[in-house]
């Protein structure tokens, strides 16, 4: 057992904070408490399935005050009758079998929970409990106490029940049922047709096959008829037209054949075709049920906030019921839900997600606050100016860009090919008909229908779904989650890349700190560190983590003036740490964020906080620069210009102080110039730009947490692979093109049979599955090969 890591959560243990309990090491009291809870309730199996599966429980007590409100609870429940209530909660920490085990055994921790079931892919748990004995709030608190805190946002509150659409599964089932049985029943006729017994029972078999084909023809294939009809009406040439045509012709010809006794018909190929097409459709749909690409601001907002009544009492009120003039209480790390004015003396608001400014903004009493910012620091009081729907943030979302359903921004490659395919097909069919009509009418009809049957672009239509479906999976394993197959085609066409700065090419996890001034000795550094320990300011935290030294010294005097600095006395020395306005002797440059140090009234130096850029950024950009135009947009100020110019290739355009609307407009201008733009961003301030661009990628440090509407979500740890992902998309399109060639080859061979009047049902029944299987194997092998060649799996050195 690794004694440096916590037994419960697996994180490193700081020796001073270590807790040893029951002969195991824990990093903090929280982890040890969860261990205790499990051990008392005889649930130690939790640790058997995975190593260190736990998470440190958060201890934010007041967060769930809104669950006391019955109206809110009612909206969050799935079911509420009599004594039973059922709720579905999303729990981001679900990641392994231990999680499934503990969440399905909740009834052992709390006997009023009747049952619970986990959906691993969606990271949800459905809990059924006795509503008279326990409330939702207590259940949520229980989950919080064992480290499985649910993620409840405004989205859950407003979500309407979506009925799962299973029609494709049903259609596939029907298609397979018909196909399998018809294949079996067709075998006798493939082989010797001259056996007497066969002659006798031929009709029985044929009509049975006919009956079996009906469900497949009339039910399973309906999507194709509908799409083909729509595309004829709108005069586009989709691939569904020749498919639908092929299916209908096959059915008609086969029925005619068995009615007049010409042959056994092509029912086997017909149902086989329908089955493979539906299989391809199903394969192309790869949904990541734990992600949502459609998020809007509602999934970023909390359900309720604390309102201060006129008599001073606090109550929890749903976000939509906030009115102008209300007073709200916002705690540390809580979101400001509406535009308003700060009443408290000071506030430190983190707008990084909304406007892209990397560090918290100091506000004083009377300043205007905008919705979407997060308070970092002590509790503040604010007065509401606008209701939620009228706040700046919501106005941003109402921008027309989000409303337009951009489905067919782009013609898929399959439909592009079908523009040539369909006319060519009809030409050959009519040519064949025209040739044979002078010789024999029956052969002419034979040939006409045979051409339409054998050239039915089954393999052609399956190429793209199978290739793209496979690539979707490959990329998903590398934590690059695409919304749908169309995104891959769009990725391959991109020629300009636009990157956001804050949060996208910088990581919010660390900041690079540089010290300028008189060097301090170890003792002095130890004083600084111990003074910082008591401060809550985010900069203090970061600085504290960077400084070395483990000795604990108590401060004699400590005073923190919010957002200005700290004044303290330690071991007889006077220490002052803070902003340039706090320490008069400092010379402040407002563009850089710095923390100044004064010891015993002598100015010592300052720590400058620089953005930490993501690993591999320079290599990534120089690689991308070869094929793409790169631009960087930032909501931040110009302070970083020199650093960026050093990091990035020459000629990369850098634009600062961009408001969200300006980012959107910038992309629109590029598109008007005819460019195909890919936007990479992370926050709400990029949302407009992400929607406007041809492909929008959202970079996320934690994919479980909100990211705005986009076409793809990229885990921040894989950021440096963007150039490889782009190359992969191009290789995917190459695979599709090669495989188109292959499938056309099959079509040509089949056509040779058809045009000469030699198309036997047996031949069709062989060509069709053969071509399908060859194409499917080919594209799967090729796409996997390309993935390996591009070294998508490489870990950073």
């Amino acid at each position, binding site marked *: 057992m690794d004694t440096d890591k916590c037994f419960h959560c697996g994180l490193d243990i700081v020796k001073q904070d270590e807790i040893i309990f029951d002969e195991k090491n824990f990093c903090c009291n929280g982890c040890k408490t969860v261990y205790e809870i499990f051990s008392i309730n005889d649930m130690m199996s939790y640790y058997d399935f995975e190593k260190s599966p736990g998470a440190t429980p958060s201890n934010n007590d007041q967060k769930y005050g809104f669950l006391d409100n019955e109206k809110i609870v009612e909206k969050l429940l799935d079911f509420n009758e009599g004594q039973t209530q059922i709720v579905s909660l999303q729990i981001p920490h679900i990641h392994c079998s231990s999680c499934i085990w503990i969440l399905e055994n909740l009834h052992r921790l709390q006997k009023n929970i009747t049952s619970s079931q986990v959906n691993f*892919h969606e990271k949800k748990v459905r809990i059924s409990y006795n509503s008279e004995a326990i409330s939702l709030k207590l259940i949520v608190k229980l989950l919080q106490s064992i480290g499985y805190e649910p993620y409840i946002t405004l989205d859950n509150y407003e979500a309407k029940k979506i009925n799962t659409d299973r029609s494709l599964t049903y259609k596939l089932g029907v298609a397979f049922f018909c196909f399998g049985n018809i294949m079996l029943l067709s075998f006798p006729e493939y082989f010797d047709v001259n056996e007497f017994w066969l002659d006798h029972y031929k009709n029985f078999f044929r009509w049975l096959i006919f009956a079996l084909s009906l469900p497949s023809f009339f039910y399973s294939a309906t999507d194709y008829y509908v799409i083909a009809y729509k595309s004829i009406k709108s005069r586009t040439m989709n691939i569904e037209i020749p498919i639908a045509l092929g299916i209908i012709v096959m059915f008609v010809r086969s029925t005619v054949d068995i009615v007049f006794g010409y042959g056994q018909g092509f029912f086997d190929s017909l149902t086989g075709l329908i089955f493979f097409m539906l299989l391809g459709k199903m394969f192309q749909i790869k949904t990541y049920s734990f992600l949502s690409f459609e998020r809007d601001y509602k999934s970023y907002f909390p359900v309720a906030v604390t309102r201060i009544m006129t008599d001073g009492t606090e109550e929890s009120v749903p976000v939509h019921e906030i009115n102008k003039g209300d007073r709200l209480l916002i705690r540390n790390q809580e979101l400001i839900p509406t535009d308003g004015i700060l009443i408290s003396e000071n506030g430190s608001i983190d707008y990084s997600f909304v406007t892209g400014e990397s560090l918290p903004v100091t506000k004083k009493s009377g300043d205007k606050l905008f919705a979407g910012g997060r308070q970092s620091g002590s509790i503040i009081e604010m007065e509401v100016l606008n209701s939620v729907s009228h706040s700046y943030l919501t106005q941003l979302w109402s921008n027309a860009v989000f409303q337009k359903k951009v489905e067919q921004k782009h013609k898929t490659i399959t439909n592009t090919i079908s523009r040539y395919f369909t006319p060519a097909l009809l030409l050959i069919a009519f040519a064949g008909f025209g040739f044979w009509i002078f010789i024999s009418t029956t052969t002419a009809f034979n040939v006409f229908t045979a051409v339409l049957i054998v050239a039915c672009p089954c393999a052609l239509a399956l190429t793209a779904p199978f290739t793209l479906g496979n690539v979707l999976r490959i990329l998903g394993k590398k934590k690059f989650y695409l919304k749908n197959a169309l995104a891959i085609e769009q990725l391959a066409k991109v020629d300009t890349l636009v990157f956001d700065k804050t949060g996208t090419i910088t990581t919010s996890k660390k900041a690079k700190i540089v010290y300028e001034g008189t060097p301090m000795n170890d003792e002095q550094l130890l004083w600084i560190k111990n003074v910082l320990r008591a401060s809550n300011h985010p900069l203090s935290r970061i600085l504290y983590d960077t400084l070395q030294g483990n000795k604990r010294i108590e401060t004699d005097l400590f005073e923190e003036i919010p957002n200005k600095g700290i004044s303290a006395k330690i071991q007889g020395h006077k220490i002052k740490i803070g902003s340039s306005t706090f320490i008069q002797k400092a010379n402040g440059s407002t563009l850089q964020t710095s923390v100044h140090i004064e010891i015993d009234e002598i100015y010592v130096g300052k720590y400058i906080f620089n953005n930490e850029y993501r690993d591999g950024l320079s290599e990534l950009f120089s690689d991308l620069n070869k094929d793409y135009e790169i631009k960087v947009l930032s909501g931040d100020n110009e302070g970083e210009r020199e650093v960026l110019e050093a990091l990035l290739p020459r000629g990369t355009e850098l634009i600062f102080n961009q408001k969200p609307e300006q980012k959107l407009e910038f992309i629109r201008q590029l598109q008007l110039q005819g460019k195909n733009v890919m936007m990479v961003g992370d926050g709400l301030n990029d949302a407009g730009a992400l929607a406007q661009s041809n492909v929008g990628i959202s970079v996320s440090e934690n994919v479980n947490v909100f990211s705005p509407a986009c076409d793809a979500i990229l885990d921040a740890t894989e950021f440096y692979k963007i150039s490889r992902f782009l190359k992969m998309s191009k290789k995917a399109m190459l695979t599709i093109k090669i495989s188109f060639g292959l499938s056309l080859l099959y079509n040509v061979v089949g056509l040779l049979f058809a045009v000469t009047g030699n198309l036997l049902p047996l031949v069709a029944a062989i060509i069709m599955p053969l071509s399908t299987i060859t194409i499917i194997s080919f594209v799967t092998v090729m796409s996997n090969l390309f993935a390996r060649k591009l070294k998508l799996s490489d870990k950073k050195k």
Partner: protein
Amino acid sequence: MRTQNRGMSVIYLLISISIVVAIVFFAAFIKAVKSGQYDDDYTPSVRMLFDDELVKASKDLGEKETGNIKTKIKTKII
């Protein structure tokens, strides 16, 4: 012609029965899909590997004996 029939007429019956059986299975498939069984196809594979604890035993025998049984099962599995 009759003499050459060789009683193959039973094939009508056989094929009809097999179709009926196939339809029964098909109906079961539809029912399963409708009940949402296939909406989550991953979690059941994990759930299957969990040990069943003896909850009933504790009701009949009382705490101490259940503890003994549980330790016995645990040692057997390990």
